[in-house]
């Protein structure tokens, strides 16, 4: 089976990060990298890792903060290795966090890295029942629909073609992209980037990097995502959000197979596979002219449709068990999912797909106070998956109330940011507290307790 171990690497120096990720990748790990504490936190919210390599000094805080978040779930099989330039730190941390933490002192020798990665490499799946094991380290499901996804991943992993993932919000497109990267055995990094989040003026620099002095404010050379993904996989999420006038740049790079950093002269070869993703259907893309046709053909050499959860109902049970096991492990509890609860989960349609299911289990987990059985709210459905057409409608027209438009805007902003409330609040230009208050006003009564717990964090 083509399943590799996973490692999260957190360091703020991009060049160092790219190198260590390539080394760890060459030692048989599928790697995910983060440059900031907040990015790392977002990643571990979604995915478990066999190993976390952590720099202590990060631009937005100390790696120790991150350790504190991991610490409560001491049963977690994740091995943590601290990367530090100061050997003296070692002893003080050892006193606080005990012997279960490894150290690498910079400069790092390959021998030390190998030793750390192979020791205590307690396999994540060892103590999990067979059916809960993840395919390619990230995917869950035994349904026929998922079997054909696995087959497609297996086939496409071996050839170096660009893949376009097509699927609704919340189906796990980024996880499939990671799976393709893991199955391909590429030594470079998996570099996720969101085309919808790029700054219009800086998109060229984000993609291709820039030389020092290329424009006002370019105080140092910067690697773009194409360069960071050298030898690996570049994941371009929400590709259809890329402004039409900027698409020719991307097309030219894909056709020429090389690019030049802004302000630079030497062309650099494109050494990565591009996996792009969209939540629009192929028909929508064509009809609404979201993507230039020539670019579409280049990016979608291999289109892969990820099925919505309602087309693989038989996986709801597995996913529920998986998420519940995760929360149980995280909080040290043994909550079970009763038969009738499971039936209700399986009957529901999940318009928000696996993401909605995970949120629902999380909410229910927090609401379940008896410590034994998972208790669902009286009505299933996230606050935003209303059937009210005014809420579903994304367009603006006379006749809508301010409240409807506001609610819609909040919903699509949250969607865009993968449910990250802090980011959404920043983009919306309101305080996090205001966002929580708005969300709370949209929720059915039974959810109130949970949002209060969340807002105190």
């Amino acid at each position: 089976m083509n399943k590799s171990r996973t490692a999260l690497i957190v360091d703020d120096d991009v060049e160092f990060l790219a190198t260590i990720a390539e080394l760890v990748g060459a030692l048989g790990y599928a790697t995910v990298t983060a440059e900031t504490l907040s990015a790392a936190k977002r990643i571990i919210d979604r995915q478990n890792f066999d190993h976390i390599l952590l720099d202590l000094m990060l631009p937005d805080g100390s790696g120790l903060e991150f350790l504190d978040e991991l610490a409560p779930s001491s049963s977690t099989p994740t091995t943590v290795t601290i990367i530090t330039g100061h050997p003296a730190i070692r002893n003080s941390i050892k006193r606080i966090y005990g012997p279960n933490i490894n150290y690498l002192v910079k400069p790092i020798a390959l021998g030390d890295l190998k030793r750390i990665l192979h020791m205590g490499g307690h396999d994540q799946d060892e103590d999990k029942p067979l059916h809960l094991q993840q395919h390619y380290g990230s995917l869950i499901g035994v349904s026929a629909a998922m079997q054909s996804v696995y087959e497609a991943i297996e086939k496409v992993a071996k050839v170096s073609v660009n893949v376009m993932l097509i699927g609704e919000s919340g189906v796990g497109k980024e996880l499939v992209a990671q799976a393709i990267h893991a199955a391909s055995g590429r030594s470079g990094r998996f570099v996720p980037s969101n085309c919808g989040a790029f700054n219009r003026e800086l998109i060229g620099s984000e993609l291709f990097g820039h030389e020092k002095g290329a424009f006002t404010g370019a105080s140092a050379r910067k690697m773009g995502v194409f360069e960071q993904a050298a030898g690996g996989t570049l994941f371009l999420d929400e590709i259809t959000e890329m402004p039409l006038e900027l698409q020719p740049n991307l097309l030219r790079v894909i056709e020429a197979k090389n690019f030049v950093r802004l302000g630079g002269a030497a062309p650099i070869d494109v050494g990565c596979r591009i996996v792009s993703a969209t939540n629009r259907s192929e028909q929508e893309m064509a009809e609404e002219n979201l993507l230039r046709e020539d670019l579409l053909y280049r990016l979608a050499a291999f289109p892969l449709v990820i099925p919505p959860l309602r087309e693989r109902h038989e996986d709801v049970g597995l996913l529920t068990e998986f998420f519940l096991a995760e929360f149980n492990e995280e909080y040290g509890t043994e909550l079970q999912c009763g038969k009738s609860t499971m039936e209700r989960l399986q009957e529901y349609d999940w318009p928000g797909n696996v993401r909605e299911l995970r949120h629902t289990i999380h909410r229910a987990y927090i609401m379940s106070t008896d410590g034994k059985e998972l208790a669902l709210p009286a009505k299933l459905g996230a606050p935003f998956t209303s059937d009210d057409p005014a809420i579903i409608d994304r367009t603006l027209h006379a006749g809508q109330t301010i409240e409807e438009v506001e609610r819609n805007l909040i919903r699509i902003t949250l969607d865009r940011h993968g449910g990250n409330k802090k980011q959404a609040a920043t983009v919306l230009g309101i305080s996090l507290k205001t966002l929580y208050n708005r969300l709370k006003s949209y929720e059915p009564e039974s959810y109130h307790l949970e949002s209060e717990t969340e807002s105190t964090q």
Partner: protein
Amino acid sequence: MIETATAVEQHLHNIRTPLNTISLTAELGKLRIAQGESGERLEEIMERILTQCARCADQIKELEEFLTIDSNC
């Protein structure tokens, strides 16, 4: 004085950072050679080392300048 010490500390950190990357990139090169890679891939690794060497040299120059200015005061 304390300010100078902190600033020197910062400069030293800025020098150490590319050095650490150089060392790690060289380890990567060794591993790639052991895995039988040659040509373009190795050239690219050498290029990365050279870039970091330049970054290191820049930082040393900045430290020199800082120390000269400071001792003139």
